[in-house]
């Protein structure tokens, strides 16, 4: 497993995502409230590119007529069939036992640290003074 620098933190504003290609894989990197999460850019159901999905919250109910709306900005609805995935884990909400999107550890690193290595920066150029999103793939 190698680490890849794929974006500056400023490239991916809160609530948005950026698609990067690392070792031939399309990976979508999401910014959820300042934390970054990365997973394969394909829905395990029928293959839609998840980067086009809607970022929503989680609405649940204990009984008809009541609801609880939580985790705003943490759930991704597939752009085709609307399957919901937890952006933090890639896990499917409707079929958590069997279905999830392959995810990759993402972290924020200071440019000054990155230029020391051993990171692979060929995906993205690095300068000392910025913060970067680093994926382990």
């Amino acid at each position, binding site marked *: 497993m190698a680490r890849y620098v794929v974006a500056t933190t400023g490239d991916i504003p809160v609530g948005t995502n950026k698609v990067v290609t690392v070792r031939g894989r399309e990976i979508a990197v999401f910014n959820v409230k300042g934390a970054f999460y990365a997973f394969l850019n394909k829905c395990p159901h029928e293959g839609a590119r998840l980067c086009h999905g809607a970022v929503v919250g989680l609405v649940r109910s204990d009984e008809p007529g009541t609801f609880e709306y939580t985790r705003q900005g943490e759930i991704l609805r597939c752009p085709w069939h609307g399957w919901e995935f937890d952006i933090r884990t890639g896990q499917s909400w409707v079929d958590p036992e069997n*279905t999830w999107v392959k995810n990759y550890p993402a972290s924020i690193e200071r440019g000054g640290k990155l230029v020391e290595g051993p990171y692979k920066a060929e995906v993205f150029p690095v300068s000392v003074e910025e913060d970067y999103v680093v994926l382990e793939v």
Partner: protein
Amino acid sequence: MNETLVRTAGATPVKDGVVDCDIHPLPARPDDVLAYMPERWQEHHRVYGSHFRAPFRESSPWPRAAPAISRRDAWPPNGNMPGSDLPFMREQHLDLHNIEFGILQVLGFATGSQRNLDYSAAIASALNQWQLDYWCNPEPRLKGSIVIPTEDPEAAVAEIERWAGHPAFAQIFMTPRLTEPMGRRRYWPIYEAASRHNLPIGIHGGGHGAHATTGGGWPSYYIEEHPTAGQSAQALITSLIVEGVLERWTNLRFVVVEAGFAWVPALGWRLDKHWRRLRSEVPHIERLPSEQMHQHFWFTTQPVDEPERPDDMRRTFDWIGWDRILYASDYPHWDFDDPRYAFPFRLSPEERAMLFRDNAVSLFGLA
């Protein structure tokens, strides 16, 4: 885990040609269609608007799961509506999925549910000319559907006569929720014309008829309304059989689009049972209902069912007949089925050829 199934839209090429029996084109601007109407009806449209059984203009009676009922990645780069841009449709669907032919299903303008019959006829004519000029002529892979003013059978027949035999049109277009059940005699002139020209009739699920879409009243939710396409389809098949339409015109071919198919065997079993007991009520029916279903009806697959035991779908196809199943994508709508991943079980090369291409080529006479 399903991660082993991961696949990306467009990552694997589709090897063999596909016929897609359900593609929805939209005008980039309503004026593209209105321009084909006589000035009297253009002005009517501007002044009075379209009769539409929905609470707000440009809305649906039920909220949909996605803007414009569409895949969120189906908006063309020019920002126009999904399905309105031919170059983008080619790139995102026709070329990507190796679509050899696509059958257009025109849902806009609610032609069939207009109460003003003359306006309805003007819209139908305009939509047909628009399909030809904007889609079928520039892109010969796309075949049109003859839109008709269903509630005015005389005008509907005139529209059929205008286009029958034109190589750009593959079928007559109807929606299932009419003023009366589809087999009633008021609609017979349409079936007589279809029979005379040997044109299939495509019945696209949905439509906004005056009646509740379930047998039990108006649904509350989209998830409740969406499956009612299957209920409408059961009602129309039953009506066409018991009214004797299929005994009178034995060459009629109906394509039931986007209404599911898993319920088809159960309907056949139930109707056969009742026919054995109640035959004398409908003496004009001489063939078993299931035999009529086998002979006269084709079914498109999208949105495909996802049974927990995939072989159950295979057995359903066995009952319906493998030569009666047609692949459809519903592009650009949100419940689109990708031709590579729509079926949960392995198809033999022969089965694959039938479902994805050959059945439709032979039904519509495509070449």
